[in-house]
């Protein structure tokens, strides 16, 4: 064990966990990384390309190396950073991206072939022979690539989404964030404080600095106590704000139960969409390393991470005086690590500082003007080479902390593609002025990294935010804190011939950058794409700026001239589950149920999706073994007796107003508005570009009251277009619109006996042909006083009615009609039979009215009135539409009883079957019990002049072909007499 004294772990609560099946013990407050380090485990992963052994580098979410598969079974979570995986009892983790064990990864052989795997090598080879790419090269590459493994099982946990609104969102609960939250909350603003960590404090928890002379944790505790008293402050721990979207909307993920073995009744995570009037970005800074030869061995870490492990988690990578810790730095901050470690009695080899005039801060060996130029240790650091001028020497060393300066976490400030700007004093990029509106960077992420400056800047950011919101900011007393200036050298990497890693995870070395430069991949985006630098899971947090510096050195330009780097959301990886949260099964999207759903279900109906609706598809009866049997029976019943079908799903729009008729005339291509009161008219709607759009009926219930129907699929769209016309095109018209689709249960009663059946439910209403002829409509009552609307319209071609009653009565009315019609052979029918009936009658549906067809093609050319203007009328006359010769025809198989397939293409007999000779296609097809065989509808070139011609329907994708005879597009009652009886 390498535990030290102190720290923010609860030594009274021990957790047992396993890593690669070996059991270890840690404490509450540990991360997986700190607990592994405490158990002396340094080797935690393998790199992406060379499969080099790797240990933990960082102590936060920027970790590029220590990636594990957390949990097991369906909950396996690949690529989890051990540095942020909160330890819980029973935690199970495995190393990943290895073949064999972590210590003996067979793909480690890649490292020996590293010279062949230089940047971009795969663009230059694997081209011959061509077929080998998919068969050999690519499968090999794919197997070797990737990191962790998915379980391939559905995620068993549940996820939530939510919406929060606030005045001030504070992102990050370090020194700056805490000061900002305190000031904002005291001002009475609605405040949300988020931090990705499970404790508040940020780097205050990982430093030994004191506030007002006491440990920083004292101040944090007192603050937390005060925070409890603010009803206007919401503290969200374990919550990462991962993205900045337009107008002050922030995406955040709260890890509700990732610190438990299983979520239990809770959700695993919640996606919050936070709408904030102002946000204060207090995201801190990330330390960068200094590339040198073989700088990637387990044991080489960021200096501040090493300090964090010691101070917060009471862990050092080693406690052996024989194998001490060394620090390699180009700045003063590195020395702090040495001091903090020494104060905890950790043996120190010394501080290697690249600066000739390196200052000394304590009693340790100082290697001024020196560099680390090499390391040894296959699975963990054993020795380092220290070079001063021409003199090199090897030293035993178990861990090396590397401090290369700090990069402000500008990420969120650049999510709107605003560019960070270079600060020559800080030697780093800081947020530019063109960041997201309303986002105020504060503290270390704005380049103000000392504790005192961060505290003050957080308070200042709060004042700015509050005053912009018209609120008064209170003066808050900030604790006394360190304010040490950090001197640092403009020193970016150690020159040398061996590989020096810049991007650890993706194995991008200084040499790769040199090669990219040589090959003219100089723009930073080319550099990244050619070498994959910055594309790893840390998104370049630990590598981008160092790489820029190397490229700048090669081009002889300054770093900002060489390029900047902006970051895209998410700040850290966000689980796909939480982004897609909510229901993934049958409740993934709303289901709309018809008013007779309960009844249909009780009848054993099969249901089918139609838009959002679940409609009865057919009603199988006992003894029926095939869906066709049921459908044939239903369709026959309509032609012979009477059938019932729930047609509620058609859109219904209530149109009222003095100008309602005129409005409808403009919306529909025909004279819709002039239909007489008590009558129904069929109408066709075009799009403004002249193509057919929708069809429906218009019933005039009163002088200035109409109800129009739309197709089921287009209900919402047609309503939208009507509102557009009403508000934007013709606002002078007196028209009021409202949808009533759900209000009325509408049941089609179709068939020769429909009148007989209907007579049994209406209350004193004359249904005779004279009193209520075809295309009549009326308000009436049924079943002893229930208000209803009756329409005499027919989709089946039979004598038919549609009756509408308040939706709550639809179920009972259906049952009643079934009961009263039993002696008439009444039969419920579903969408399949409905389809058969309409194809037999040649009525267009979605397959014909598909947005690509014209009124003429549908055979409805005459419905586009030339006497008046309507939407689409002008454009329907364009050359291309007017000259389209395809027409809707009926199609009858000749000499074949095979099934005719919709989607077959039509060709002249004997013609070669190519795209040039293609003459149309079968839009709809079905078995027609009436005809006694398959029938179809289709669009055919000059179809209206080719009656009785025999043509070919070709369906190569299913290997079928058949001869068809072209017939008129109605197979039943061509004169339309039945529906007028």
């Amino acid at each position, binding site marked *: 064990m390498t535990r030290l004294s102190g720290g923010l772990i609860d030594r009274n609560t021990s957790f047992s966990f396993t890593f690669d099946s070996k059991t270890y013990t840690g404490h509450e407050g540990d991360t997986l990384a700190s607990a592994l380090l405490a158990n002396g485990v340094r080797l935690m992963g393998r790199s992406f390309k060379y499969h080099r052994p790797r240990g933990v580098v960082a102590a936060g979410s920027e970790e590029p190396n220590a990636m594990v598969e957390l949990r097991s079974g369906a909950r396996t979570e690949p690529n989890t950073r051990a540095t942020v995986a909160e330890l819980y009892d029973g935690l199970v983790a495995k190393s990943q991206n290895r073949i064999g064990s972590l210590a003996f990864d067979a793909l480690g052989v890649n490292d020996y072939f590293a010279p062949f795997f230089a940047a971009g090598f795969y663009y230059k*080879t694997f*081209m011959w022979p061509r077929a080998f790419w998919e068969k050999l090269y690519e499968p090999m590459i794919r197997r070797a*690539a990737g990191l*962790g493994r998915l*379980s391939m099982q559905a995620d068993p946990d549940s996820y939530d989404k939510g919406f929060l609104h606030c005045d001030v969102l504070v992102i990050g609960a370090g020194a700056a964030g805490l000061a900002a939250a305190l000031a904002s909350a005291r001002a009475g603003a609605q405040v949300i404080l988020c931090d990705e960590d499970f404790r508040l404090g940020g780097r205050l928890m990982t430093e030994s600095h004191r506030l007002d002379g006491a440990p920083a944790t004292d101040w944090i505790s007192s603050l937390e106590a005060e925070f409890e008293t603010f009803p206007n402050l919401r503290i969200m721990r374990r919550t990462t704000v991962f993205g900045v979207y337009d107008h002050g909307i922030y995406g955040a993920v709260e890890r509700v139960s990732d610190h438990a073995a299983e979520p239990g009744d809770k959700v695993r995570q919640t996606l919050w969409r936070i709408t904030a009037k102002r946000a204060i970005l207090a995201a801190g800074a990330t330390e960068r390393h200094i590339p040198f030869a073989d700088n990637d061995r387990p044991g080489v870490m960021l200096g501040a991470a090493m300090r964090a492990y010691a101070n917060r988690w009471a862990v050092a990578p080693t406690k052996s005086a024989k194998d001490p810790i060394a620090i390699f730095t180009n700045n003063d901050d590195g020395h702090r690590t040495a001091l903090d470690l020494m104060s905890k009695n950790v043996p120190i080899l010394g501080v290697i500082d690249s600066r000739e005039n390196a200052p000394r801060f304590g009693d340790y060996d100082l290697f001024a003007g020196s560099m680390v130029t090499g390391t040894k240790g296959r699975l963990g650091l054993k020795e380092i080479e220290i070079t001063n001028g021409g003199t090199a020497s090897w030293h035993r060393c178990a861990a090396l902390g590397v401090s290369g300066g700090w990069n402000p976490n500008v990420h969120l400030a650049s999510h709107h593609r605003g560019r960070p700007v270079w600060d020559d004093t800080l030697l780093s990029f800081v947020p530019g002025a063109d960041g997201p509106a309303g986002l105020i960077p504060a503290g270390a992420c704005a380049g103000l990294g000392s504790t005192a400056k961060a505290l003050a800047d957080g308070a200042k950011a709060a004042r700015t935010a509050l005053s912009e919101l018209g609120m008064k900011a209170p003066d808050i007393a900030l604790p006394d804190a360190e304010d040490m200036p950090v001197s640092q050298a403009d020193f970016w990497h150690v020159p040398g011939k061996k590989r020096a890693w810049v991007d650890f995870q993706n194995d991008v070395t200084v040499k790769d950058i040199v090669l990219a430069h040589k090959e003219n991949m100089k723009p930073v985006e080319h550099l990244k794409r050619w070498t994959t630098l910055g594309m790893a899971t840390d*998104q370049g947090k630990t590598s981008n700026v160092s790489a820029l510096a190397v490229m700048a050195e090669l081009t002889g330009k300054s770093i900002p001239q060489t390029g900047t780097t902006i970051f895209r*959301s998410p700040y850290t990886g966000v689980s796909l589950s939480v982004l897609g949260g909510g229901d993934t099964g049958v409740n*993934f999207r709303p289901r709309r149920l018809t008013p007779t759903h309960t009844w249909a279900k009780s009848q054993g109906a099969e249901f089918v999706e139609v838009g959002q609706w679940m409609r009865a598809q057919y009603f199988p009866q006992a003894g029926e073994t095939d869906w066709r049997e049921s459908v044939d029976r239903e369709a026959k019943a309509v032609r012979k007796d009477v059938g019932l079908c729930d047609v509620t799903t058609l859109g219904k729009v209530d149109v009222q107003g003095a100008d309602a008729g005129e409005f409808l005339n403009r919306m529909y291509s025909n004279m819709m508005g002039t239909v007489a009161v008590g009558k129904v008219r069929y109408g066709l709607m075009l799009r403004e570009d002249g193509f057919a759009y929708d069809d429906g009926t218009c019933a005039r219930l009163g002088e200035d009251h109409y109800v129009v129907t739309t197709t089921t699929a287009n209900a919402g769209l047609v309503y939208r277009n009507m509102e557009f016309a009403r508000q934007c095109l013709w606002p002078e018209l007196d028209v009021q619109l409202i949808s009533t689709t759900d209000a009325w249960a509408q049941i089609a009663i179709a068939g020769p006996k429909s009148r007989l059946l209907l007579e049994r439910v209406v209350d004193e209403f004359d249904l005779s042909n004279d009193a209520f002829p075809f295309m009549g409509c009326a308000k009436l009552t049924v079943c002893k006083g229930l208000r209803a609307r009756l329409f005499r319209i027919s989709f089946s071609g039979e004598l038919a009615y549609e009756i509408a009653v308040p939706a709550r009565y639809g179920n009972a009315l259906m049952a009643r009609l079934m009961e009263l019609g039993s002696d008439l052979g009444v039969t419920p029918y579903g969408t399949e039979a409905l389809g058969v009936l309409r194809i037999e009658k040649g009525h267009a549906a979605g397959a014909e009215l598909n947005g690509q067809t014209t009124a003429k093609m549908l055979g409805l050319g005459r419905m586009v009135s030339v006497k008046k203007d309507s939407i689409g009328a002008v454009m329907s006359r364009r050359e291309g539409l007017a000259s389209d010769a395809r027409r809707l025809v009926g199609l009858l198989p000749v000499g074949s009883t095979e099934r005719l397939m919709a989607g077959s293409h039509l060709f002249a007999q004997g013609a070669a079957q190519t795209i040039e000779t293609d003459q149309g296609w079968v839009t709809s097809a079905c078995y027609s019990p009436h005809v006694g065989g398959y029938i179809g509808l289709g669009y055919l070139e000059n179809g209206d002049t080719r009656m009785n011609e025999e043509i070919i329907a070709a369906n*190569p994708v299913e290997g079928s072909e058949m001869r068809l005879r072209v017939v008129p597009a109605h197979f039943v009652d061509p004169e339309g007499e039945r529906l007028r009886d």
Partner: protein
Amino acid sequence: MKFSGFKVIKEALTGHKGWTPLWRDPEPQSAYDIIIVGGGGHGLATAFYLAKTFGQARIAVLEKGWLGSGNIGRNTTIIRSNYLLPGNEPFYEFSMKLWEKLEQETNFNSMVSQRGIINLIHTDAQRDAYRRRGNAMRFAGADSVLLSREELREKVPFLNYDNARFPIKGGLMQPRAGTARHDGVAWGYARGADMRGVDIIQNCEVTGFKIEAGKVLGVETSRGFIGAKKVGVAVAGSSSRVMSMAGMRLPIESHVLQAFVSEGLKPTIPGVITFGAGHFYISQSDKGGLVFGGDIDGYNSYAQRGNLPVIEDVLEGGMALMPMIGRARLLRGWGGVMDMSMDGSPIIDRTGIEGLYFNGGWCYGGFKATPASGYAFAHLLATDRPHDTARAYRLDRFAKGYVIDERGAGAQPNLH
């Protein structure tokens, strides 16, 4: 320099000393025969085929940023030719055939990977529509397979077959479809064009056209005036902006399309899968990232970034379709600016200005079109006649009513 496995080995053994720049950084000459505006995939492919196939010389490609900085570098890398309409399908199939020999033509491994695409079927009506499409593909010489639910389940067992809001009933597959490494396509064409003498001029923004008496004489750029006999514009995403400098209004709106990649994973998804009932499609890159996307954000935008609702919509679709991806993490999202045309199909045509040619309106389908678009545009620039497969991509098809509207959505770009 010829790239080969042998060369890679030789350089590895000799310290990588022999590599040379993939392309030059030439200073612009005062005039060229043909200037291509736009150093993206289409512009670079155009230059490549002009030089290689159509024997043209004195060609420059002008790129306002770094080459490949537009949509060629920000897409989901899918290549396919599974179109329905006769105006489109032969063109995309031509593109497919060019993809199949791309690497041998450019001597650059663009990682064209024909692992297939499957469009899922959820309703009988969709099956009919896909049957029509699958047949149309066959008649244009492409490949297509209509998969039953059982056949599909065998190929991709990890979909949500049993508890789905939109049941999965099968799929339309194009086995020859797949993916290609997007940057590698741009670089392959760029290197191939450069080797054939094309001047690729980066950081050279076109700021105006010099037009006299209805004829284009050259372009004004951030690096001065450059004369040209012919100017071809291939700047999808910025088409309206650039063509407005020539006084033209286009049947195009610019929209943002977001795409996403997960953290790297071991092989999971074999080919490309598109959800037919939600807005989601997915493949897996050779590096292991799941690459996926969905619908455009839906509003005009040049911002190269999108908003959260679409991200949620895409992942909701993804999780409903394949809930086994849930434990993976989103690594990165990006937004590309799409030339959304009024019928969802592109334009490759002459303009009313002599010597000025336009290539654009690719909606979100520009990547797969890159080879054929370059070839057809080169054909048009070199011969003044449209390539056979691109005849329908006329600019006047809107006014005349010969739109190529695969979705039947009409003149509303955000519905295509």
